[in-house]
């Protein structure tokens, strides 16, 4: 399933925007349309594959970026302690106090705007805004994990030993702390990818996501009101989305299981 999620966007397929007038709302496994088409005659398989690019790009970029910034801040806070730690931790708490979908929704709604409501926002800019917003949502989640992990590691004997031998702080962090904190970040990062894919879908359903139909969320949003005409147009993207999220969670859970001794035993 993870493989599918990764390779998905390199399979070449016909233009998803092309629609087949003769084959509107045909069922799965019909000639020329392996998974069928939706009520507008769009090929579902091609949409899924090309939508994967958008959906996965959004989720991987925002989790990667958010994870990086969050980890840097989290490690910095936990290693330095003191006032800086208080400021960063409070900021994280403040950002976490707004439920993440609400925060993402507010950010996208505010940032993806034009002076004239009649002119639609450029899709590339919209995508950029969505990535930025979801990155902001991810930062405190992963930042907190990084902070917690660093706190436990920075008091370990080998770190204290390294410090007493006069090793520079930057070296200690890079050599001794980062390698130990990273697995925890990876594990939660995969879970976060799942969360972001879902968030992208939810934003589309709320009408502020990708609108031109090239993401899974947009596919679901487009057919949400009319699925009785072509049920497969609903089930296909929904199942693909669910399977991808399950795959991400499985990887994340596996990694976490190996780290977390308590749950790992079970």
């Amino acid at each position, binding site marked *: 399933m993870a493989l599918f999620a990764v390779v998905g966007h390199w399979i070449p397929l016909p233009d998803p925007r092309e629609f087949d007038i003769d084959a509107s709302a045909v069922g799965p496994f019909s000639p020329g349309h392996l998974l069928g088409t939706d009520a507008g005659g769009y090929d579902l398989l091609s949409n899924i594959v090309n939508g994967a690019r958008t959906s996965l790009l959004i989720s991987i970029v925002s989790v990667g970026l958010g994870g990086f910034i969050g980890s840097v801040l989290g490690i910095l806070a936990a290693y330095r302690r003191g006032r800086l730690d208080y400021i960063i931790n409070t900021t994280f708490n*403040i950002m976490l*106090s*707004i*439920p993440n979908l609400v925060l993402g929704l507010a950010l996208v709604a505010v940032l993806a*705007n034009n002076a004239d409501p009649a002119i639609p926002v450029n899709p590339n800019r919209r995508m950029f805004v969505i990535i930025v917003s979801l990155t902001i949502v991810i930062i405190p989640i992963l930042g907190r994990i990084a902070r917690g992990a660093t706190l436990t590691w920075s008091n370990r004997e080998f770190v204290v030993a390294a410090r007493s031998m006069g090793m520079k702080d930057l070296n200690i962090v890079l050599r001794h702390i980062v390698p130990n904190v990273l697995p925890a970040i990876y594990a939660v990062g995969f879970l976060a990818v799942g969360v972001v894919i879902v968030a992208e*879908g939810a934003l589309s359903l709320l009408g502020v996501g990708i609108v031109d139909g090239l993401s899974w969320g947009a596919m679901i949003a487009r057919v949400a009101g009319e699925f009785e005409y072509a049920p497969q147009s609903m*089930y296909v993207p929904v199942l693909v989305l*669910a399977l991808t999220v399950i795959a991400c969670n499985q990887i994340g859970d596996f990694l976490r299981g190996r780290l977390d001794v308590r749950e790992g035993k*079970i």
Partner: protein
Amino acid sequence: MNDLTFKLLAAARRLAQLLVVIVGSTFLVSLLLQLLPVGLKELYVFALDEAGRQQQIQALHLDKNPVMFYLYWLWDFVRGDFGSIVYPTGVLDPVMPKVTAAMPVSLRLVFYVQALALVVSVPLGILSAYRAGRRSDRVISYVLFSAASIPNFVFALLLASFFGVTLAWLPPLGYVAPSENLVEHLRTMALPVLALAIPTIATYTRLLRTDVIAALREDYVTMAASKGLSNIRILFTHILRPSSVTLFTSAALNMGALIGGTLVIEQIFTIPGMGTEIGIAIFSRQYFALQSYVAVIAIGYVLFNSIVDIAVGFVDPRSRDRRNG
């Protein structure tokens, strides 16, 4: 320092922390308005003559800097004035009545979901833990893992299409107030609640299962068993009490996900709650209203979590000692 002053100090510290977070998050939301690519004046000032313009700008505090703008908003907010929806005619439609109308609907939805989730997941989690490793446990675990991964709007759409349209057992959308018709109320709420509850049940059950398995390995449980206490007694006094702490804490944390979930679910099922109001505010570009809605949600979420935190302290003395020590 004696015990009482210590406790009071700790409580004061908590309260201060809470205030910092609430002020911070509402300020963050207020800053968002400054980030709008469109000027607030262009959006909300409609008067044609200069005098009228100035008056409107002052009424909406748009001539202030971001900090003052926030403080004015906060002062109004504390006094129960949640800002207004500004119509192009210059007419102001206060937001407060909308919040008081929408809030109970959303709260009801969230309450039903949490209640259903706890009622189902507690026995399921215990059952699964007692049969840990057997086939029935593995099947339950796998199904739950998948269910926890599937987003709630997927369930919502599938449930609406299956029970609402194909079978036509339940209304696929709409909302009826309980005071109007209780049976219809429950019928309209059934699908949205189910859609939100399935992933929640899965999360709670998995958590409880892990916790109960860990508790079963504790020495004090073996001790209790060797004293000859009945299984039921051990379950309730030695296993469920510590496990319930984790469960309630995560139920409180899960409120955030649920609130986010209701945003989408309310729109799918056209339930007139906070999610729908937020959607309307976004589409009609009413950012003052949006600011207050998000602030209400954030404050509610923070308060709820603190209350649960304190409640957990009563149930589990260990966490109390840890915090004070």
